[in-house]
């Protein structure tokens, strides 16, 4: 007779563990080939034996200039981006089983876009950690790095004032991470699902 741990090990070996990330964007002129966009944040999905997670990190608000560029529909929905996107994620979680980002990227393809997920495998030794918080924390770090990369690409940091502002932005990310850690501590289960609304301060 096989022991419980042996059965568990077998199933873990069979199941591929991955995490995926998608950007959330709003295109203000999809007619134009350069399709200017407003970066709203990122979604992260983790599928591992010890964790099924959908996390998001989105901006708290848009600038006045960005809001001005929106049509009436987007202006209403994105008056509180986090609230709107959290509701969309709840719907997606309730509708799709697994590969939530893949589904969302096929659902939102016009002005409001969820990009095709960039997926990467999670090494087995990480995926099978007894404490899934470690895995989730690493994934959230990836989410934060992606947000920072976008910021970096979009804006050259030229003045010390801007650099100081970027440090404040980093503090916002750390707060988000802290909130997530407390959420995951509260739900130590073999398979669990939790959603995170990150905090992202306004762009400079």
């Amino acid at each position, binding site marked *: 007779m096989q022991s419980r741990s042996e059965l568990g090990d077998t199933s873990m070996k069979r199941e591929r563990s991955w995490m995926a990330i998608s950007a959330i964007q709003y295109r203000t002129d999809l*007619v*134009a080939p350069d399709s200017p966009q407003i970066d709203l944040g990122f979604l992260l999905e983790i599928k591992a034996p010890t964790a099924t997670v959908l996390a998001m990190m989105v901006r708290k608000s848009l600038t006045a200039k960005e809001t001005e560029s929106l*049509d009436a*529909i987007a*202006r*209403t929905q994105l008056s509180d981006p986090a609230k709107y996107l959290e509701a969309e994620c709840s719907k997606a979680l309730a509708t799709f089983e697994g590969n939530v980002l893949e589904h969302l990227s*096929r659902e939102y393809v016009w002005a*409001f876009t969820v990009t*095709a997920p960039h997926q990467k495998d999670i090494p087995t030794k990480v995926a099978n950690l007894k404490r899934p918080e470690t895995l989730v924390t690493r994934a959230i770090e990836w989410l934060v790095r992606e947000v920072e990369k976008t910021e970096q690409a979009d804006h050259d940091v030229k003045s010390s004032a801007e650099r100081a502002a970027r440090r404040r932005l980093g503090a916002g990310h750390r707060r988000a991470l802290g909130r997530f850690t407390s959420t995951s501590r509260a739900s130590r289960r073999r398979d669990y699902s939790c959603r995170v609304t990150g905090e992202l301060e306004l762009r400079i």
Partner: protein
Amino acid sequence: MRYFDERVDRFADQCRRQPVTQEPWRLRPDLGTLSGAASSYWVSASIVGVAKPLKPDNCPFAAHEKIASDLAYDLPLPVPPVTLWDRGPLSTGDCQYVSISAVPFPQPREWGKINGDPTLRSLTDSIRRRMSSAMSAMLVFDAWVHNTDHDNHPGNLLVSADPDETSPLRFAYIDYSYSMNHSWPNNEWSGVSCPPPYDRHVPVNTDVIRETAQRVQELPEANIREIIERIPAEYVSDPDQSKRKLVTGLLDRQRRITEILRTRHAI
């Protein structure tokens, strides 16, 4: 009721004059992954468009898109301009002869995605009232070309509303792959099948239905024949038979459009 972006209007004029594009289109996977009836994908040249089909098919999807778009241009009704694109020989098994449908306005959203969003309730109520005329006109067009893919399909009606409510609503019906010959494997054009309106909660305007039906009936036979006959043979498998069916079906339903509409609407 056709309020497209002015860049798209210029593109529409070109498309109506010249069925096959000479612009250097390129694939745009960075704009996302599309799905749908005939597997479509993003492309761009001077503007952004949606190309289809991805894989060759016996049904002339590209021709359907082009014909529907040109007929709508002549009426004029809100179907985005479509051009035909020869991608050149491909080793991937993808379809060489495809259609490209232009993105009609800067911020298109699928009506099915925003309709029902509780945060938009007052706005969608207003949009629903404002789209009544356009939707009533388009149900005539869909009945004529026998489109079976607009029955509350969440993704086939695009809208955008200007913050200024006095500005016209931007509105476009897309996806005519499942129309005409797809609905007519034999001689089904001769029936009275009338597709339902896209959204049953939008009030139907019978005056607009009657007026649009009249415009359809007044469209010269020569225009209809020209729009079909000029499609290059490569875009239609079995071109002689397919084109004959398209001409016969459209002319027959044009003549009987009021009879077809009366099976569903009190006009």
